[in-house]
C-alpha cells in the first residue's frame, strides 16, 4: 500500500473512482466531503457535501483517528465507522462500515473507501440495493446469496430433523407396545420396573394369568382368542390408573405395576374388581367366551432392598398358588404383610 510499484502518480478520472469504489468518499485537506461514490450517495442526503467526515460518521475504537491529520497518519489501516444518528434511518440497526483512508499523492485530500462489512445483508434489504450498486468485484451479492441459501438449507435440515424425530417416537412407541393389544410389552415393563427400583416410592406388582383361555382358543379359534385378549386389555386399562403400567408378557399373561400403591386392601379390591369384570362373558360374533383370571401380588415393601427379579418370581409363585387354589382369585405373596389371603370376588354380584 505504501510502496507503489511506480512512484509516478496515476491519473484517474473521478468517474473511474465511482466505478471502482461505489462506496467511497473524497475529502479535501480540511476533511470536508467533496464527493460521494454513487452507492454511498443513495444512502446519504446531498447536503452532506461540505460537511466534515467526522460530522457524518462516528469513528469507533479508542485509537480511531479524530481529525484529518489522524486519518492521514493511519492511512491504509482498517477503520470502523457508522453514520451519526442524524444520518441513520430511525429504527434500523446502524451499519458497521469498514473503511480505509488513502491520502492523495500531494496530500491535498483523501479518498476513503467503505464497505458494509457484516451489515451488508441488512444494508441491501434496508436501502433496496441491487447488483448495479456494487462493483463487479464485490462479493456482497454472494453474501446475500449465501444467507438465503443457508436459510433454505437450514429449513430443509430442520424439516428432516422433525420428520426423524417423529419416526423415532413412532419406532419407540412400537418397540414398547404389544401389537395385538396395544398394551405395553415386556421391554416397556422392564423399563418401568427398572425406573421404579431406582426411585424411592414403593410400588406393587400384579401378575395375572387368564383362566380357561386355552378353551376359548381351542373351541372357538384364534380369532376369538385374539378378540378376548384385546377385550381383556381394554378392561385392564379401565380398572387401572393412568400412571400404572399394564403389559402383556406372554400369550395370556399380563403384569400390572402400581407406583405408590401398596395398601393390601386397595390392591385386593382392585384385583377383585379385575377378576370380576374379566369373568363376565365376552361376546365374539354370535358366541360367548367365558374366562376368568388368577392373580399373584407382591409389593416392594416386602423387601429390604428392591430386587425386581425376586419380586417377579414371588408374584409368579403367588399366581400359581391362586391357580392351585381353584382359579378366579388373587393371592398375596406370603412376604407381603397383613395380606388378606386369598381374595375371591363375591360371585353373587358379578
Amino acid at each position: 500500500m505504501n510502496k507503489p510499484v511506480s512512484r509516478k502518480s496515476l491519473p484517474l478520472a473521478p468517474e473511474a473512482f465511482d466505478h471502482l469504489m461505489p462506496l467511497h468518499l473524497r475529502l479535501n485537506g480540511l476533511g470536508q466531503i467533496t464527493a460521494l461514490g454513487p452507492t454511498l450517495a443513495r444512502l446519504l442526503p446531498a447536503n452532506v457535501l461540505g460537511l466534515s467526515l467526522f460530522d457524518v460518521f462516528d469513528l469507533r475504537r479508542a485509537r480511531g483517528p479524530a481529525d484529518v491529520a489522524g486519518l492521514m497518519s493511519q492511512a491504509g489501516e482498517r477503520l470502523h465507522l457508522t453514520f451519526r444518528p442524524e444520518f441513520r434511518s430511525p429504527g434500523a440497526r446502524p451499519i458497521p462500515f469498514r473503511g480505509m483512508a488513502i491520502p492523495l499523492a500531494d496530500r491535498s485530500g483523501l479518498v476513503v473507501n467503505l464497505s458494509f462489512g457484516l451489515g451488508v445483508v441488512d444494508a441491501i434489504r434496508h436501502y433496496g440495493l441491487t447488483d448495479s450498486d456494487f462493483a463487479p468485484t464485490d462479493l456482497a451479492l454472494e453474501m446475500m446469496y449465501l444467507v438465503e441459501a443457508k436459510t433454505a438449507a437450514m429449513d430443509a435440515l430442520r424439516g428432516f430433523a422433525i420428520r426423524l424425530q417423529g419416526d423415532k417416537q413412532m419406532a419407540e412407541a412400537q418397540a414398547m407396545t404389544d401389537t395385538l393389544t396395544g398394551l405395553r410389552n415386556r421391554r416397556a415393563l422392564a423399563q418401568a420396573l427398572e425406573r421404579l427400583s431406582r426411585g424411592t416410592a414403593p410400588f406393587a406388582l400384579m401378575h395375572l394369568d387368564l383362566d380357561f383361555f386355552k378353551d376359548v382358543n381351542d373351541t372357538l379359534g384364534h380369532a376369538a382368542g385374539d378378540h378376548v385378549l384385546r377385550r381383556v386389555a381394554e378392561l385392564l386399562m379401565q380398572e387401572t390408573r393412568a400412571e400404572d403400567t399394564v403389559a402383556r408378557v406372554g400369550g395370556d399373561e399380563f403384569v400390572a405395576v402400581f407406583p405408590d400403591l401398596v395398601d393390601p386392601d386397595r390392591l385386593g379390591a382392585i384385583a377383585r374388581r379385575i377378576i370380576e369384570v374379566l369373568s363376565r362373558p365376552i361376546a365374539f360374533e354370535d358366541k360367548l367366551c367365558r374366562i376368568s383370571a388368577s392373580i399373584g401380588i407382591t409389593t416392594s415393601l416386602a423387601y429390604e432392598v428392591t430386587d425386581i427379579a425376586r419380586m417377579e418370581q414371588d408374584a409368579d409363585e403367588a399366581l400359581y398358588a391362586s391357580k392351585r387354589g381353584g382359579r378366579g382369585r388373587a393371592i398375596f405373596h406370603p412376604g407381603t404383610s397383613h395380606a388378606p389371603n386369598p381374595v375371591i370376588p363375591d360371585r353373587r354380584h358379578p
Partner: protein
Amino acid sequence: MLGLINRSFQFFVIDTWGVEAWETVASAIGLPFAGFEAMLSYDDSALDRVIDASSALLHRSRFSLMEDLGTYLVAHERQATVRRLLRFSGANFTDFLSSIEELPDRGRLVLPDLDLPGLALSDLGGGAFRLRCLSPISGAGHVIMGLLRAMADDYGALVLLEHLGVEGEEEVISIQIADLELYAARPFSLGISA
C-alpha cells in the same frame, strides 16, 4: 448424489401429476411413500430409476420429463427458493448466462455434497452460445435446458434453445438470444426474503 435433486424430481411429479402418480412411481421402484430425503445421499442410480419409472407411467420420454423438471425448478411456487438463488447470478439473462459456469461452485458453497452438472459456455458471437454439460446423469443437459428456458422467461429475454445431443461425454445446448429483455422481467429484489 444428494437427495435434494431426487426430492426435487419427486415434488415435480407430485406437483404436476398429483400425489397418486408419485405413489405409483414410488411403489414401482420400491421406495417408501415418503420418498427421498433432501439431505441424505443416494446412489446415482436411484434418480435414474425414478425417472425411468415416471417415464413409463406417464408415457413421457425421459428427456422431455427432464426438461420439464428444469422448468419446474424455476417456475413452480414450491421451488421459489431455487429461482431466487438463481437470480443472484446476474441482473439480466446475458449476465446470468455468462456466470452460469459458476453454478456448480455456487451449489457447493452451500451444500458441499451437491453435485451439479459441470458447465462450460462458449460465446459464438451475435447472441449465439454453446453450453456444454457434463454429468453422470444421462439427460442432465435437458434439465439445464428447461431451466434456461424458464430463466429466460423470468428475465423477460427471448431465447431460442436447442439440445444438440451428446458430443463425447458432454451434452451440448445451443442458445440464441434473439432480443434481449424484450418483455418485462418478473420482479426481483435482492432484499426481500422469499
